[in-house]
């Protein structure tokens, strides 16, 4: 009798080690989150992944929203730094003395690229999505990926080329050659051209806006083409650059140059792709918040003014200077500041007057002018430069000499595209003018120029994590 119980217990004990209620401990994903298996299963949630990417870009500091503009502005001859602090990235870039511990916008950019990669895979493999939507979303993600790699390759040179979401494929990745990265960018953009809509689309990425009131905040065929024009230009593929830019310039029903005061307003006719201002009720665009000076300068939040080099580059009566540069009197001193984006006080997202303009028609004119100059189409180049000069209230150029014309394009690029996502720095680099310019400018900023400094260092922590990663020459 007694032993019977013991046996029972012993059986229970052995049962202990063999059983377990599997079903009970299986858990559904939390109902406040989505998982990879559910998010690509409906049109709406799949679209929300791209919308999430745009919000993520628009609401944080990253390469597109302020870093490229501010950092490259400091590094080149566009901005003067007033926030002197050796630990600050601003100061390091300003003095062209960037530490290997400073990351600039390495990891944040790759985080956004991951977002693109995971979206491309999820959407391409999903069988439950509207076919047209699928094309659009993959096109958008590829366009964004190309845009982000454009910044990486121009900032760091060779970088790891990550196009899949599975991290295991890349933990020991090497840096890809620059040409390889451009091949990927070009392929992405060409594929995006095929996939993307020619209309500006609503938030559902499916239905078109009535053209008059279009919010130009989703990538389109036009955006892919405009960026492709820039990529061709950077790769000195002049004919392709001219052709691509012409596609934009010729679409006069959608795009036209507008008065300087209206260029950066939301839905401006000049814009090809803008990022919607999304931050609710908080401060305006990062650009305006960082650069617009009111009553203080030299703090981490208001570090900069316009550099003397940029100020002096403007001709008298240049409307761009009048419209895009502001003046503030702080403690009796006048400071000039970038004023393309003016709304520096906080307003609700719906009331924000400006959207961050990432691609606009003026650049396309300048791309075509440069391409034509290289192709020895002097008249065509002049016509394009004059479009830009006239809009700025300046007279025509009559330069015939190719190299002088190229200098002029460069000058117009400097004045037209100043403090816009690092154009000046990248232009100096690709035109190989950087050493001449920076050898003069860098010492005025308290720095010493060396040609290796045109590439930023790969962050040291990254090399520690991946032994196969090498550093750019010059940085130890």
């Amino acid at each position, binding site marked *: 009798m*007694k032993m019977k*119980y*013991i046996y*029972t*217990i012993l059986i*229970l*004990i052995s*049962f*202990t*080690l063999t059983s*377990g*209620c*599997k079903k*009970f*401990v*299986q*858990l559904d*994903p*939390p109902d*406040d*989150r*989505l*998982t*990879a298996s559910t998010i690509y299963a409906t049109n709406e949630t799949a679209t*929300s*992944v791209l*919308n*999430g*990417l*745009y*919000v*993520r870009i*628009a609401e944080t500091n990253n390469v597109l929203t302020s870093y490229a503009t501010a950092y490259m502005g400091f590094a080149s001859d566009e901005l003067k730094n007033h926030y*002197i*602090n050796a*630990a600050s990235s601003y100061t390091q870039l300003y003095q062209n003395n960037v530490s*290997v*511990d400073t990351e600039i916008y390495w990891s944040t950019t790759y*985080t956004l690229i*991951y*977002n693109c990669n995971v979206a491309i895979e999820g959407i391409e493999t999903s069988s439950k999505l509207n076919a047209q939507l699928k094309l659009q979303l993959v096109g958008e993600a590829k366009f964004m990926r190309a845009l982000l790699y454009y910044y990486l390759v121009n900032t760091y040179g060779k*970088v*790891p080329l*990550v196009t899949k979401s599975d*991290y295991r494929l*890349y*933990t020991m*990745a090497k840096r890809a050659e620059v040409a390889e990265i451009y091949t990927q960018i070009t392929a992405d953009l060409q594929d995006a051209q095929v996939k993307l809509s020619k209309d500006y689309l*609503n938030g559902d990425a499916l239905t078109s806006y009535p053209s008059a009131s279009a919010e130009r*905040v989703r990538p389109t065929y036009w955006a892919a083409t405009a960026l492709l024009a820039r990529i061709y230009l950077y790769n000195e593929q002049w004919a392709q650059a001219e052709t691509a830019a012409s596609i934009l310039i010729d679409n006069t029903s959608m795009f036209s140059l507008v008065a300087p005061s209206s260029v950066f307003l939301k839905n401006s006719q000049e814009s090809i792709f803008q990022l919607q201002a*999304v931050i*609710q*009720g908080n401060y305006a665009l990062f650009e305006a918040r960082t650069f617009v000076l009111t009553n203080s300068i030299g*703090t981490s939040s208001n570090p900069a003014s316009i550099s003397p080099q940029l100020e002096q580059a403007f001709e008298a009566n240049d409307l761009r200077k009048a419209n895009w540069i502001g003046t503030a009197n702080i*403690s009796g001193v006048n400071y000039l500041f970038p004023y393309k984006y003016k709304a520096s*006080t*906080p*307003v609700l997202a719906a009331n924000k007057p400006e959207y961050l303009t990432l691609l606009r028609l003026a650049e396309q004119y300048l791309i075509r002018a440069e391409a034509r100059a290289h192709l020895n189409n002097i008249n065509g180049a002049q016509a394009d430069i004059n479009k830009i000069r006239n809009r700025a209230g300046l007279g025509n150029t009559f330069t015939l000499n190719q190299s002088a014309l190229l200098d002029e394009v460069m000058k117009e690029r400097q004045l037209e595209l100043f403090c816009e996502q690092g154009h000046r720095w990248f232009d100096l680099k690709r035109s190989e003018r950087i050493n001449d310019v920076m050898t003069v400018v860098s010492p005025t900023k308290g720095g010493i120029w060396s040609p290796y400094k045109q590439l930023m260092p790969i962050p040291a922590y990254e090399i*520690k*994590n991946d032994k196969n990663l090498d550093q750019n020459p010059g940085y130890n």
Partner: protein
Amino acid sequence: MYKIYTKPTCWKNQHVPKILLIMKLTTVLMIAIMMQVSAASFAQKLTLKKNNITLEQFFKEIRKQTGYAVIYTAATIKDGKSVDANYTNTPIEEVLSNSLTNQNLVYELDGKNIIITRRASSFLDNLVRAFASIDIRGRIVDAQGTSLRGATVNVKGTVKRTQSDSEGNFYLASVDEKAIIVVSYIGYEQVELSGKSEMGIIRMKPVAGELQEVIVNKGYYTETQKLATGNTVTVTAKDIEKQPVLNPMLALQGRVAGLQITQTSGVINGPLNIQIRGRSSLNDLVGNNPLFVIDGIPFQSTLLMDPLGNNGGNGVFASSPQGNPLNYINPNDISSISVLKDADATAIYGSRGGNGVILITTKKGQTGKMSLGLNINQGFTQAPKTLELMSTQQYLDMRREAFKNDGLPVPDIATSPNDPNYDVNGTWSQTANTNWQKELIGQFAAYTNINLSLSGGTELVQYGIRGTFNRQGNLSPGDFDDKRGGLNFNITTHSKDKKLTIDFSGSFLRDNNLNSQIDVTGNTLRAPNAPDSFKPDGTLNFGGPNSDNGNNPYANLARTYSNKTDNVVLSLKPTYKIANGLVFTANIGLTNLNSNIKIKQPVSSYSPLYLSLIPASTIPALINTINEQKTWIVEPQLSYEVKIKDIKLSALAGTTFQKSASEGHYFIGTNFVSDAVIGNLANAGQVGVGDGGSYQYKYNAVYSRLNANLSDKYILNFTARRDGSSRFGPDKQFGNFYSAAAAWIFSSEKWIENAFDFISLGKLRASYGSSGNDNIGNYAYYDLYQSRGANTYQGLTGFYPRSLANPDVAWEKNAKLEFAIDLGIFKDRVIATAAYYRNRSSNQLLNYSIPTFTGFTGVPNYNFPATVQNSGLEVTLSTRNITAGNFEWTSTLNSSFNRNKLLKFDNLENSNYASILEIGQPVNGRGYAWVYKGIDPTTGLHTALKKDGTVGSNAGNYVNLSSEYQITAINTLPKYFGGLNNSFRYKNLQLDVFLEFVKQVGRVSLTDFAPGYFSTDLYDQISTSQSNVPVEFLDRWQKPGDQAKYQRFTQSFEGIRAYSTWAQSDASYVDASYIRAKNVTLSYQLPSAFKNKLKVKNASVNLSAQNVFTITPYKGRDPESQSYSTLPPLKVFVLGIQVNL
């Protein structure tokens, strides 16, 4: 007799009858029946069905059935009527009151004696009794029959006493006929007997010491300490109740060997670090908290995020007054806390027991008449120590010297009107001298704690109800009370046959904690000449047009934090005895913790300048988070005990189903029209919704135990658990955990008994086994996408991938080994335990760092082939030093020596842990620091060693592992820690002094800014307020060649970097050991006479003080919290009164 003496007419005539009477009484007493039935029968119940029996027969029957001695004189029952008994298994009290009501007799239960007396004795009756005295003699021997010399024989309630002689004989003359004789001898159990002329041989039993008879709660089963095979330490209400603390864990500080509790902030409900036997996880994010179980119900020890983004977590990151959920358990409701440490004790908790288990048992009702207890404590709290800061003159001199050192003129507002050095440029008074420490944290705050309890019960139903109210003020000026009220109940009912027992307990606690958003302790380092905080009209003074007083500390106080938390714990435990030895029991319970936290940021609390720099719509604001955590558990269990010859076998098996869920909501209201309406989110012009986070956790297990005990000498104990947790990947959910333990009570061996008779208990025990740690976040194996919240794109919500999924995530495994010896010597006057343990935690859950170009910095909760070892020695010693009559002195000491090291880490040098971990070195408590190289004799700045061998002064603001400077690791883990309690009792007066001690190295934290620096950054609410420094810094470099401890005063950025070079160097790691008088309690029991007069069972008053004083060489604010900017653990002084009716 009655008749005669109730009607006395003349005393004189009564002499003769009285003497006769006394003689008679003596005779009667001599034949009075005092029979002690064998203690084998414990049934205090009577079954008797017989009519018309005499009282004498009736009492005899009671004796026979219950073993109680019924004491009466023949005279008492002389007039007794016959009894009609009709009782079936009726409690003795009921029987007696039933049968005696019409008898004019009353009974009194006194231990195992039932004393029968006449009701309402007259004055004379009493008087006679007073005269009715006897002489008593007897002999006292020990268990072996040896005479005991010097035993005290005392007549209870009188001063009459004597001692036994060398033969053990004693004699007491003229003792009341009804007297109770108390025999005591050190090391033996006290004996109480009814007095009679010839007591015969009185045998004394050795004291069943603490070690031997204490019942140890091990969660799924209990056992006596003597027979225990594992390591469990129990702290009882006696020690918990004395301490005026709100969190029961604070009452455990220093009291349990191996349990380290660090209070990182003195803020009410502030966070605690709780670790048993060191840290076993490499990852900061993996909880190292033990498992907490209250009355069988697992209690979440982590909270969700609070509105400021502080993760309640394991308290590591939290600095907010939210801390951990154990704040919401009333220490006064607790009857004991058991700390389970080794494999034998913890393996039965499986994947949750790796960090040890803390079992909290609440108080239960007790059989007996209804008893009402009242406990009122009133006192105050106070900050323990103030830093000696510079006076205004010293401060301004320092600032001027700083400018001089930096080669700059002292700024003057007249010449440079926009200069922000308000303290020296003439903007601020040069003579004002505010003691900010006194003003901001120097107040006394009231402390009130009231507990009311009601308990009682019959044989079948016991109940207990306790109510509590607590109020603790805040040291900062303002209305910041923490108020809490709670109710706790317990009902235990038994079926008539006692086969079924149902134990039902519940507790509810409501806490309403008001505080300021920011701990203003950091603000106490404001410049002493900073302007008045208020304008004459009572509004906050932010200074002139430049808001020079923009960082007014009262602005921080005006941003209020209110945390309303309700905590409910309910537990139901039915037990059914199916057959002899076979018991079914189930543990069913639920917990529910709700908190509602509101932070108000009124516009009036911000300076005009600050407001001009931020979006107008963002202030005023109301931030509101609502959190709910729920758990239910069901654990049916079957246990069986049987004795086969000399072997006692006990076995149990059970299963657990548990589900926990947590939900958080985060709202921020902005665009309010004014401060007046910020109390309600509905008044906000705009409400943002944040990600509050929610999760579910499910857990299922089967567990078992088998225990074999041979003659109470050799004991084997096996436990096993197979459990599955939803936190782990699809095929990794289940795992097996086990332990095996053995104990040998060698003192029960004859040859030991003979050879070492001074050993009262000797036990060797060993255990080995495994348990796990599943203290990680939920859903680690899912690819989760999270909403971007209120910011939408084209009006639509966006989602983004939140983290990388790791489908392989499994628990950390902790293999534990322990050897221990328990000793009781000199009849348990000295009880000692020494335990050696070695815990090896493998399968470490780490953040697997991957290159960020993959999109993420790491894969969270990745199981690494790394092993962390904690090994050490724990010693506890309790001694009864003096027990001489009225004076008693006892001590308990515990000390723990833990060594933590990384044993194994595959491919460490190639991992990104290479720079922070080292094989053979501790895994936590490593302070990384620069290598200090003294003050540069020419620049006067601190220097540190660079990797290239040179020295420099710009090592930076924080220790950066990839810097050009050399880094050294410093072990800040305690070398040893423990506690020493001394209790002194003289008659009714008792003094308890409990000292906590820690031997450790810690960082001296005096200021984060270079002495001489004055910040004007308006966004930095705290730092601006910190420009004053301790006078310690007067020992500074002034001119080339100076030998000084600190660098020159400086206000330059370069100087700040150089100061950080020192403050982040090994030179800032100092001896942070301390001895703290954790608790001193003086209590006084009111004398019996007084208590009787007041008609109370028990009454005492006590004076208790917590954190009374600290002896330490540490120069900062507090060696435990080690921060100049957080409130250190507070001193508490209370006067308490306890009354039991």
